[in-house]
């Protein structure tokens, strides 16, 4: 007799699985659609090219870090330090660049190098000292904030002319920064779907012990993913420099919470092993469009916080999450 004779038919389950896994994403995009409809009907300036490109560019600032955050969360980790790292990256890049075109490359290298370093330190503490990612990056959040203040408590450095222009450059009607975000989205999808590293992220997040016993190089995977996440923060620091022209330590606090919110709204599980790039994009857009609409519609300032809170709670609560 065949071993499989008594097994249920796997195919029919496929559709249920699809719905279960993609429910949050469908929900988020439905939500976004609703907001867009509200925007179009209630404000004549919402659906203009100008505002849409504006929203697209703004989304990149949250979105790029959210992609890094999503990868870390996929491995059942978390990175609370991204906000502070964005802050330090802005300062470092501004100081190194110091307004000179010739310093752009050194500044980029220094900033990305900083990202790599911070990621490696996270990896080290998590891998070698076996400290929970939450704690490692919580400590790192506090320490990097201190480092930022030590570097400078007031605005320093300066972006070069080209870097400042980069912010407003467009390819077609779309800002370069939005293109960058788009390219990173595609790359992340490819990474998750078609590379061994991507699969290892799932394995480590799904069951780290099993991954270890199966010979997955879990340390390397975790070093890698924390470096990637810190790199997205460093890149965002550079983008902020281009946005502001100077290094201002006032920027960066709270980004970690926003990215985590966006990632979770998008259906990625905080328990690890499950992630969705499109979902994360949806989460980012939902937060971005909400903020944009609050300004566009001139919503009474006193209830803005309430509305934001309601939207976040509704977004995470409407779809019953799969518990572990």
């Amino acid at each position, binding site marked *: 007799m065949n071993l499989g004779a008594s097994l249920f038919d796997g195919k029919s389950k496929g559709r249920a699985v699809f719905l279960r896994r993609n429910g949050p994403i469908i929900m988020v995009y439905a939500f976004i659609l609703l907001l867009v409809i509200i925007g179009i009907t209630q404000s004549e300036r919402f659906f203009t090219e100008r505002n849409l490109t504006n929203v697209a560019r703004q989304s990149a600032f949250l979105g790029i870090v959210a992609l890094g955050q999503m990868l870390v969360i996929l491995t059942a980790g978390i990175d609370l330090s991204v906000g502070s790292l964005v802050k330090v990256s802005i300062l470092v890049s501004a100081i190194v660049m110091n307004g000179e075109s010739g310093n752009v490359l050194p500044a980029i290298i220094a900033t990305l190098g900083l990202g790599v370093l911070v990621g490696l330190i996270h990896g080290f503490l998590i891998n070698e000292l076996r400290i929970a990612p939450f704690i490692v990056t919580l400590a790192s959040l506090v320490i990097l904030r201190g480092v930022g203040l030590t570097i400078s408590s007031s605005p320093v450095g300066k972006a070069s002319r080209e870097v400042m222009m980069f912010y407003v450059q467009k390819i077609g009607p779309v800002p370069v920064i939005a293109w960058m975000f788009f390219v990173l989205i595609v790359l992340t999808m490819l990474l998750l779907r078609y590379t061994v590293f991507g699969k290892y992220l799932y394995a480590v997040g799904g069951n780290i012990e099993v991954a270890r016993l199966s010979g997955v190089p879990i340390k390397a995977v975790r070093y890698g993913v924390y470096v990637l996440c810190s790199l997205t923060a460093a890149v965002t620091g550079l983008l902020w420099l281009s946005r*502001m*022209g100077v290094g201002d330590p006032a920027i960066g606090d*709270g980004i970690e919470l926003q990215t985590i919110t966006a990632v979770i709204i998008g259906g990625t599980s905080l328990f690890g092993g499950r992630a969705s790039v499109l979902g994360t994009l949806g989460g980012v857009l939902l937060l971005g469009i909400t*903020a944009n609409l609050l300004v566009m519609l001139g919503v009474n*300032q006193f209830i803005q916080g309430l509305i934001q809170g309601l939207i976040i709670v509704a977004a995470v609560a409407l779809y019953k999450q799969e518990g572990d």
Partner: protein
Amino acid sequence: AQDDDGDMLGFEFTDEQIEASPYLQSVLSRLDETYDTSDFAKDGPYRIALAAQGTSNAWSALFDAHANWYVEHLGEDVVAELLYGDAQASADIQVPQVEDLLAQEPDALILVPMGAAALSAPVERAMMQGVPVVLCASAVETDNFVTEVGTNLWVVGASLAQYVVDQLGGEGNVAFMTGIPGVTTSDIMEEGAQAVFDANPGINILDKQPGFWSPADAKGIMETWLVQYGDEIDGIWSGGAQMSQGIISAYLDAGLDIPPIGGGEWQNGFLRLALEHDIKYLAWQYPNAMITMCIDAALQILAGEPIARFIDFSGVIPNSEPFTDVEGADYFREEWSDDVHGPITMPDEKLAELGFTTMDDG
């Protein structure tokens, strides 16, 4: 008693001090500059964007209330629409918000910058887009804006320090509590104060810590200072009224005599405490009513009239000069709730409507 402290801009700078402070240079140079606004001239009614600090505390709530009241007061044929951005006191939120506001193509932008550097580029982009920018209450790094309405914060910090020095007769120990490190307003006041203390060798700064403009943080630090230095502290410099409240509270708990405080504001709660406990202080002012001047400035620009590049509210808004405990009682208003910052230029009913007076519930 300190009549010479009354007029802040009468503060004497040394050349070195000016040289050391880009802020001072910028303010002093802009004082006698005017901006040719003819490019911005257009017919009303106007759509004006206001990127405000937002509903983060009573000061900014009253700021917004003044703005709304004043726009209403001017009428729809002057300002057709006031586009509003609530930055929740955060530069991170404000930068994209300014972008959102500019996407609506307003006729002018009034900005209460939440970070001098962070908002510089957005300000430049607004100007590039042809939207004139009025900075309200604080400055940005770039010079590319039309005008700033505010006061010389360096001088504010310096005057408060000078008050402490004078009270101590030039000799004694000072505890130095700054606001939030990295926030421009706080940093510049600190810079001015430090310059004065540096110029007085008899002054010994015991310790300098940030109180984060929070009564709780200020009180926590003051408590520790008190157990460490006790009555060695001869004078206190404080960067804000909320912190002064925390400081006073720590003294009251410890049962020690309160030394003179350079630092307070026309904030009703602070005045109440100070009056009750007979505290010597110098208060500076940062009236939220200055938004009316900012709106006036925007209208002046849109009318194409030349405008001064630095507009000091001190003396323009009634009762907005610094004052000391000697006049304190004249400023205190029994019916206001604790967190009202004076002076108020809108009608009393408005204030009551917003729940800022406590007359009805006794």
